[in-house]
């Protein structure tokens, strides 16, 4: 069944119509799509529905009288410049890290990459020992947390 057929078959009571006007106002384009056709049918058929709609439209028109200022012309450039600046900073940080990792002397060429490799290895060993020492229930809970994080289901 397509959307249009479904909307035509929805019954619209006066009470529901009144609720629609109270919440969404008198403009049909703001009414929920599922109920719009039935509500418009009621407007066609009922004088009272038309009167209620007019009253809601009067409030809509008051709300529409409030104008707002456009964003300042420089806002877009400011946003783009800040984003660009941030990217450059991140790139600079990476360049610094790579430079540090490579080092400048033959001794640093070997020691620094080796040092960088040993840190995650040590961290892995420490975390592994800690997980192994947890009670079984708690261990399963931690594993589930890690799985959720890995699958991106958790903030």
């Amino acid at each position, binding site marked *: 069944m397509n959307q249009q057929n479904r909307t035509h078959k929805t019954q619209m009571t006066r009470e529901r119509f009144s609720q629609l006007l*109270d919440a969404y106002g008198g403009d049909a384009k*703001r009414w929920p799509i599922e109920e719009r056709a039935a509500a418009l049918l009621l407007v066609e058929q009922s004088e009272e529905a038309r009167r209620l709609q007019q009253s809601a439209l009067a409030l*809509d028109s008051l709300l529409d009288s409030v104008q707002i200022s456009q964003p300042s012309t420089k*806002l*877009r450039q400011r*946003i783009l410049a800040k984003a660009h600046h941030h990217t450059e900073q991140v790139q600079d940080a990476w360049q610094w890290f790579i430079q540090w990792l490579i080092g400048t002397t033959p001794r640093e060429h070997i020691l620094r990459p080796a040092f960088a490799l040993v840190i995650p290895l040590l961290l892995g060993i420490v975390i592994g020992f800690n997980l192994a020492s947890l009670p079984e229930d708690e261990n399963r809970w931690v594993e589930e947390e890690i799985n959720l994080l890995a699958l991106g289901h958790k903030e």
Partner: protein
Amino acid sequence: MFLANGVTAPLIDAEESRVKNTLDETLMQQIRGGDHQAFATLVGRHMEALHGFAQRLLGNPADADDIVQETFLRVWHKAEKWRPKSAKVSTWLHSIVHNLCIDFHRRDKGETVNIADVELIEPHLPDDSRQQEEVAVQVKAALQQIPESQRRAIILCHYQGMSNREAAQALGISVSALESLMARGRRKLRNILQTQVADLLGEL
């Protein structure tokens, strides 16, 4: 601005036109990969609507500038947090603006400007325009008098043109809760304006 030097004009046009016709969801995927052109298109596409939303919530265009800037910078820095199937990009952007405005209100509590006190700048308006301006000031003031949650719901559905589902998603509430907020908000507005605007426009 972010295009590499040496790219010829027709190629730039083709690239710009390709990005302009891209869906928001695809733009977000490109932004995740650090695509500045996609980011610029997203900013151009949504800046005005988000600025309007922030301005109506805060009542001040300068504060709205800051909120919109912060929103887009968060999008740029944290594009990976966006989940393709969780919400439309525009709804997600509105949620960020909404949350930033709440934070702003918390920080700024007690220092808000009473819009009713702001004087009109134009002293020699024709009678009709003057009356319209007076009505607009009254409505603006009335909007600031209703509870914040009701104002947010009305702004999203009435001014931002969101569907009930999108607005409910942006506010993190159910559709029936949204309807209830809007109905109560509009009723309060009607009550406030009944006396103030009746003098200017007759029976509401």
